């Protein structure tokens, strides 16, 4: 068990970054709370690394301010912020052993030799690298190098830990192990984590909140369940996974429910405050297949286009009479027998599972 670290709160106020005439980040405002696990998620080139570089102090923002526990830190150089950083590709010191790598930040802080020795060996045990302390990074596997990078960033108990796609080079098993380790480290140390990943599932599994970026803009910042189930726009909805989008006509709101028509069917959904949100969105896994019109909930008539067997689940591609495509994801065990392309079916879902977009 590691002692709880004084975690910091960092803030960005209207931060922008230009490279020449190219806008890499525009008008980013967010607050990362003490002990939070914030994930930056977005397609390649959306500005995630740029924001991390600005938070760490290796790049200066072209506009806006940064705060650390409420105080301005825009002009504070990286070596004074001294946030822990795990770079993509690990950036270990190739000429130092694992122990020397991990001891480096403690030597910078001029800790007594005995304390350095104790803390280095404690953290080596914690990340499961006991017995590898005398090796050079080049003698370690990818996952082991990753853990050295994490240990080196954690050992001096920085108030903030910044991680740029730290698992990108790992296989699925190792990735799972490392995710588990990260979760445990976060729980045990209480440090503020800012994590960059390309992997939606990883983001949903690890984070307290997720910030979604597109083309240098912050699209949504919310808890995993909220960004997945109540995305604020179509980009976020589609980026986090497959989604069915049904344009509604004659949409009307009446108290706590809204209703409209899609093809021949009247559909019901929770109302939205956003003007212009006239599409009903449902994730494929919330739709169920019926052979007759279900008694309750929303349903749309369609024909099976094709089935994809995925083991525990089966993916169904449907086409409605109006020619719209729908995707369903169902447990294979719940599938009615004797389905084949062309079969007439109903795609139904509970009214609370859809939302307006």
């Amino acid at each position: 068990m590691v002692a709880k670290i004084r975690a910091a709160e960092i803030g960005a106020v209207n931060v922008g970054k230009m490279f020449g005439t190219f806008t890499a980040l525009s008008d980013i405002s967010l607050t990362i709370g003490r002990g939070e696990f914030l994930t930056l998620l977005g397609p390649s080139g959306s500005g995630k690394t740029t924001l991390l570089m600005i938070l760490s102090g290796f790049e200066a923002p072209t506009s806006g301010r940064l705060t650390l526990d409420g105080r301005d830190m825009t002009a504070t150089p990286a070596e004074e912020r001294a946030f822990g950083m795990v770079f993509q590709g690990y950036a270990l010191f190739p000429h130092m052993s694992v122990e020397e790598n991990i001891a480096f930040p403690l030597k910078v802080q001029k800790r007594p030799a005995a304390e350095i020795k104790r803390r280095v060996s404690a953290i080596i045990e914690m990340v499961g690298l006991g017995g590898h302390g005398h090796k050079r990074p080049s003698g370690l596997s990818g996952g082991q190098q990753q853990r050295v990078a994490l240990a080196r960033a954690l050992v001096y108990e920085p108030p903030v830990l910044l991680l740029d796609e730290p698992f990108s080079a790992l296989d699925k098993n190792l990735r799972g192990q490392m995710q588990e380790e990260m979760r445990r480290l976060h729980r045990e140390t209480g440090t503020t984590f800012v994590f960059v990943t390309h992997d939606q599932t990883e983001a949903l599994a690890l984070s307290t909140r997720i910030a979604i970026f597109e083309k240098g803009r912050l699209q949504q910042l919310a808890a995993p369940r909220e960004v997945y189930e109540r995305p604020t726009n179509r980009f976020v909805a589609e980026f986090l996974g497959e989604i069915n989008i049904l344009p509604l006509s004659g949409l009307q709101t009446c108290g706590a429910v809204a209703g409209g028509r899609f093809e021949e069917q009247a559909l019901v959904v929770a109302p939205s405050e956003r003007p212009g949100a006239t599409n009903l969105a449902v994730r494929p896994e919330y739709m169920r297949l019926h052979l007759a019109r279900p008694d309750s909930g929303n349903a749309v008539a369609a024909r099976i286009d094709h089935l994809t067997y995925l083991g525990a689940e089966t993916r169904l591609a449907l086409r409605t009479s109006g020619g719209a495509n729908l995707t369903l994801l169902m447990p294979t065990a719940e599938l009615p027998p004797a389905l084949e392309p062309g079969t007439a079916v109903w795609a139904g879902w509970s009214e609370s599972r859809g939302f307006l977009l």
Partner: protein
Amino acid sequence: MSHPSRFLLLIGPLLLFLAATYLVPFLGVMRWSVTLPASGLGQYKAALGDPLVLTVFWRTLRICAAVTVGAVAAAYVVTLLWVRGGPMQRLVVELCILIPFWISVLTRAFGWLALLSNKGLINGWLQALGVLSEPLTLVRNEFGVVVGMTHFLIPFAVFPLASAMRSLDERVLMAARGMGASRARVFWQVFVPMTRAGILGAALVVFVFALGFFVTPAILGGGRSVMVAELIYLRIFQSPDWGLGAAISVILMAGVGLLLAALMRQVRQGASR
């Protein structure tokens, strides 16, 4: 055609050329060293027993070591400016590296003579400023030889250093800075050790080059700081001691070979550890 044979066809002429111009003459020199004037290892015994030869070997080693340290250290600073400096610094460094290549060894040695001699510019200034009353002996001694050779060899050390500095992962330096390390600590504890292979490579190039220096020591040493290349020249061209000259050459070659092997091992160990 299979790959190995095509490879051989491409590289074959070069191998033949190298064999004709280096290997065959060197084998000839080796034969002289064991046949002239009589068969046997007598010349080697004579060379290693001759105090003059040993003095020259020892002096050569001393001068080359000093030149290596000086040239590599100076080249490190120059390369740092070249690889990591601003556009203006880069341009200046490029000119400083390229221009010396256009000026012959001879011209440069005489240039240093003009600067360093007793009536030269440096002594003139120092005396005019009243710093010195008697001229300082800066040339016609080992100091002058070391200065001239160091100056000549700096550009050769720049290229191995530049390739090491260019291939260095910037993020490793950032990582060190991010942990709060000062610029000096990042430089001495991260940057310099990470360019170790380049430093060793540059040192090897300079040292081996320096061993064969002839013109610069002859001019700036004023006949008093004879180095091994000049000694071989004297033995072969100015006295009939071909066998002894050849034996000294072979000893020099063997020394260079051993040094190369040791350095290769060092570099490889550094990379694999």
